[in-house]
């Protein structure tokens, strides 16, 4: 038997193991091949920075005319954005009324911000979103409260992109859930119908769904009734997204253990109560990452409306740089548009990560 009588002194770890040097050794230079890789990557990063920074910042023209941008040695022509910003953001919306879509976007961003704060979640927030829909209708169309009427054929730019994606997501979400439940239903007719719908829509490219929506939907209506182009595109997006969401939700439903269904059955819950209270809350939580994936791709896919002639954010930018004097500065315009898309997609991604973390924190052991 041995007994410890003296205790070893508590010492600081060797300097090569901690701090910046320790970190570098452990992560970047922990083997010969990794050291080489580190140096190569570092060289590449330096090369890219020295190529981009002078163009994008040091020699860039921030304001001015096309003449200034074409001066020898001039870098990026950010002036094009200042010049064309309003057309890019709002499309053909009546110029003097463009404060209205701007206000609408502001309201939207405000509510998105509020929705990111967990503390504010509740009935009030839901009603705020419902109210937002009416606010958008009033602001965008006008015709009431002394606002001049603006036909929706003039809508364009960022409000159009936001509206199409948000409406598609909000409407497709419940449809996707119903389709997923239908696909796992015991009723052969319901199941067959849902499978057929999902496979049909998933089996064709979005562009052809949009074409079909704009060409075929009018055929279903009696002559004289015209369904608006915007609405047709909206229906197309919603149908497309709902098929994808259905598969995402189905993955979640399949991940729920059989015991959960049995426990709900044994307690006497009916089918809808079982799904709504037990199965879906767990399944939807599991599929947040792929679900947000679908949302993000829908947001970006709205740019495909260019093929049926709607002026969304990307198309508005494209039209804006068609102006002959500015034509050669399309790269700057596309970078600007890419940054706007990125800002929204990145926000969605971050929001979903936080949501996941919050929800799992509550229930984990």
């Amino acid at each position: 038997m041995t007994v410890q009588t003296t205790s070893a002194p508590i010492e600081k770890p060797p300097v090569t193991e901690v701090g910046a040097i320790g970190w570098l050794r452990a992560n970047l230079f922990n083997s010969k091949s990794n050291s080489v890789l580190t140096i190569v990557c570092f060289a590449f990063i330096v090369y890219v920075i020295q190529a981009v920074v002078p163009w994008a910042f040091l020699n860039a023209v921030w304001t001015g005319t096309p003449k200034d941008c074409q001066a020898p040695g001039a870098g990026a022509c950010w002036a094009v954005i200042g010049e064309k910003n309003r057309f890019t953001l709002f499309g053909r919306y009546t110029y003097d009324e463009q404060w209205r879509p701007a206000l609408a976007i502001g309201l939207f961003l405000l509510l998105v911000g509020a929705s990111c704060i967990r503390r504010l979640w509740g009935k009030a927030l839901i009603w705020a979103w419902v109210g937002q829909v009416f606010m958008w209708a009033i602001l965008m169309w006008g015709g009431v409260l002394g606002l001049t009427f603006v036909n929706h054929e003039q809508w364009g730019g960022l409000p159009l992109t936001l509206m199409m994606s948000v409406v598609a997501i909000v409407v497709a979400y419940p449809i996707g859930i119903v389709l997923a439940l239908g696909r796992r239903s015991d009723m052969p007719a319901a199941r067959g119908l849902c499978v057929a719908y999902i496979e049909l829509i998933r089996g064709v490219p979005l562009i052809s769904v949009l074409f079909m929506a704009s060409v075929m939907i009018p055929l279903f209506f009696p002559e004289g009734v015209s369904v608006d182009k915007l609405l047709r595109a909206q229906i197309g997006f919603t149908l497309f997204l709902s098929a994808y969401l259905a598969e995402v939700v189905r993955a979640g439903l399949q991940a729920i253990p059989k015991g959960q269904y049995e426990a709900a059955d044994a307690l006497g819950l009916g089918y809808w109560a079982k799904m709504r209270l037990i199965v879906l809350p767990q399944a939807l939580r599991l599929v947040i990452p792929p679900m947000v994936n679908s949302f993000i791709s829908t947001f970006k896919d709205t740019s495909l409306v260019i093929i049926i002639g709607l002026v969304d954010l990307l198309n508005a930018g494209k039209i804006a740089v068609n102006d002959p004097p500015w034509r050669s500065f399309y790269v700057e315009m596309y970078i600007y548009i890419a940054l706007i898309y990125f800002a929204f997609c990145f926000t969605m991604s971050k929001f979903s990560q936080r949501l996941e973390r919050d929800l799992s924190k509550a229930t984990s052991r």
Partner: protein
Amino acid sequence: MTPQRQARREQLAAAPINIEVSHVHKWYGEFHVLRDVNLAVSKGERIVICGPSGSGKSTLIRCINRLEEHQKGNIIVDGTELTNDVKNIEVIRREVGMVFQSFNLFPHLTVLENCTLAPIWVKKLPKKEAEAIAMKYLERVRIPDQALKYPGQLSGGQQQRVAIARSLCMSPKIMLFDEPTSALDPEMVKEVLDVMISLAEDGMTMLCVTHEMGFAKSVADRVIFMDRGEIIEQNVPDEFFNNPQSERTKLFLSQILNH
């Protein structure tokens, strides 16, 4: 036979029949899992069902609340026959509570919400009342202090006690236990069995699939041995354990009692 046993027997003989299973057959595909099973359970009777795995004992009790469908024969629970009629199934499920081997608590709801869910949505009780009932049963299973935790934060024994409380909140007339202690660490088996014993003392009709032979000896009115889809032997515990009749019962008992 002790006078208490004798009295208990007479009391049960006089009690009405609560569950009647007659000539029940069930197949999983080609596999004949229940073969002509007959069983009558009196009100307040405590039955322990044992047998080797695959003998159909779990399937039998799962047929009683229609988690499994039988293909031939009749099952009558508390006067209602189990048919494909969804209304009947729902009526019976309200009367019959079930406790599972793997607890099957709802992980996204707190312990209290697990308990109030069915009373609120099935019995349409107001939330306050459902919560009062839930707290009463959580006290009964001795974990009222865990009411606001999530199932994932509890030990196995605590989870199973919550599962029992959740069933009791629907005030069932019959409780089915499907190997309630098989998934528990050994030191947690007792706390669950204690709750089951106290339920038995209150006169609950109970059907337990379990290998806890100590529980069977002290609590059961009748022990049933099943093998290959049939009821091979049934008897009062003393007789069952001390004087088994069939060879298969003897073999089974020798396997589980001498290790």
